[in-house]
């Protein structure tokens, strides 16, 4: 896929630039801000643009806001990507098994999916984190717990159409084992529409992680944007920048991931249309 096609629409270009920036921030964080971002860096509640050593100022405890922003990008991106990968992995496997096996297996798996879908996703994540305890991997699992149902449904629908194709019949005729047919012939061909969901899931996961952190259920050993917003809430009148800055970062990231994802999907569709 050529880059020019990805940058075809201004929305996609903007999304990719923001996403690129986010990734750069996440990757550069330990080099640009090698100190613990949770450590005190200066006087508390320093407003932005006063001290060039602390360009965006400090919070109530005197922690560097820029360092928090960079390290927070790391957390957001890691959680978003890991949760999306986990949901797509689980979703495509469950969806493939349900669609390919059919009958009772399909019925049971889809009713379980229904059950997860009827419970509000955030509530489910909240429940898991409050029971198991906040750590990065638990947060990822909690988000995936509510996000796997979408990929499952799409994978199943796709598999239902693919399993009637002649190449599946042909695989049965040569004596291929049903498990191999499901995961080698059917699943790879059912994946593209499922992957198209990934940007939406990453964006939603970043938001869910921020919301969990805002409620104090994020990993306490990591800086998160949600945690920073919550931290700033206490001084919202006197120092609104403490909530506004990570808030803007959050909005831009979610928007960037979503737009970039749309751009990639459209670029891929255009390529297939031309082929």
């Amino acid at each position, binding site marked *: 896929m050529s880059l020019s096609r990805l940058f075809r629409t201004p929305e996609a270009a903007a999304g990719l630039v923001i996403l690129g920036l986010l990734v750069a921030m996440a990757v550069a964080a330990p080099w640009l801000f090698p100190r613990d971002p949770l450590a005190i860096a200066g006087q508390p509640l320093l407003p932005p643009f006063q001290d060039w050593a602390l360009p965006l100022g400090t919070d109530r405890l005197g922690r560097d806001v820029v360092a928090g922003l960079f390290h927070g990008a790391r957390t957001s991106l890691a959680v978003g990507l890991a949760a999306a990968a986990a949901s797509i992995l689980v979703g495509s496997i469950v969806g493939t098994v349900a669609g390919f096996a059919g009958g009772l297996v399909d019925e049971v798996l889809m009713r379980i999916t229904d059950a997860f879908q009827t419970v509000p996703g955030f509530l489910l994540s909240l429940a898991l984190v409050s029971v198991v305890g906040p750590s990065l991997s638990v947060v990822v699992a909690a988000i995936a717990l509510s996000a796997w149902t979408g990929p499952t449904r799409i994978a199943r629908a796709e598999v239902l159409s693919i399993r009637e*194709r*002649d*190449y599946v*019949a*042909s*695989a*049965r*005729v*040569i*004596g*291929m*084992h049903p498990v*191999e047919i499901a995961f080698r*012939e059917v699943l*790879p*061909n059912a994946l593209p529409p499922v992957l198209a969901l990934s940007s939406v899931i990453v964006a939603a996961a970043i938001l869910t992680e921020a919301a969990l952190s805002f409620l104090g259920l994020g990993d306490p050993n990591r800086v998160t944007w949600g945690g920073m917003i919550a931290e700033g809430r206490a001084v919202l009148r006197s120092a609104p920048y403490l909530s506004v800055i990570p808030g803007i970062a959050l909005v831009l990231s979610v928007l960037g991931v979503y737009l970039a994802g749309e751009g990639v999907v459209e670029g891929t569709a255009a390529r297939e249309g031309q082929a």
Partner: protein
Amino acid sequence: MSALLQVEGLSKRYWRGDRDFSALDGISFSIAPGETLALVGPSGSGKSTVARILLRLVEPDAGSIRFNGEELLGLRGAALRATRTKLQMVFQDPLAAFNPRATVARLIDDPLRIHGIVGRADRPKAIAALLERVGLAAELASRRVHEISGGQRQRVAIARALATRPALIVLDEALSALDVLVRGDILNLLAELQRDEGVAYLFISHDLGAVRAVAHRIAIMDSGRIVEEGDAAAVIAAPASATGRALVAATPELPVFPRLPVFKETVS
């Protein structure tokens, strides 16, 4: 000579909306080893249903299929997969019948690997030999399915079917997606393979020109029944059934393909 395939009273009904209709209504036929039986008939007469039932892709409502003296309809799981080596199929549209992501090598490798016919180290050589057997260059192995021509694809499908050394290959309208010149080449290939390997064919077609070139016997189907059966040349020369006469009358360019005397002499 005992029959390789003995089909008795095969029936299949389908529900369409609130009415059911009979796709197959108690059909019986047999195929001897190394023989070609042509199954011809108008669209919707149940030819492809026969193929799909023989390959256990669709379950019949009633009837029996004895293959190599063994009841095919009773087999399941591993026993069925093992029996499949002896009973293969070539589909009408090779592009639809191949995984769009597969390379030619993988398609031919699948049966060799699954049934442990050739060890891993020797497989590239076996794939090349099979490609050569169906008249393709070994270099084609690395190509993807959509990168080769329709005729080449059907040759790959035949190579994939041949990989397990089957006793019977069902050819379900295997030539109808090909242009006339390629069709003649593939017919010659099929005849040559039958002569060399003694493989039997169930040749499903509505093209009487092609049927005349390769078939020993012919069975004419209409509305789920076999309405006429007999020696291919005799039936085409003087069809007794109304369906047979209509099919012959609808094939003006007969004979399209030269008869293949060398191979026809091999079966008595």
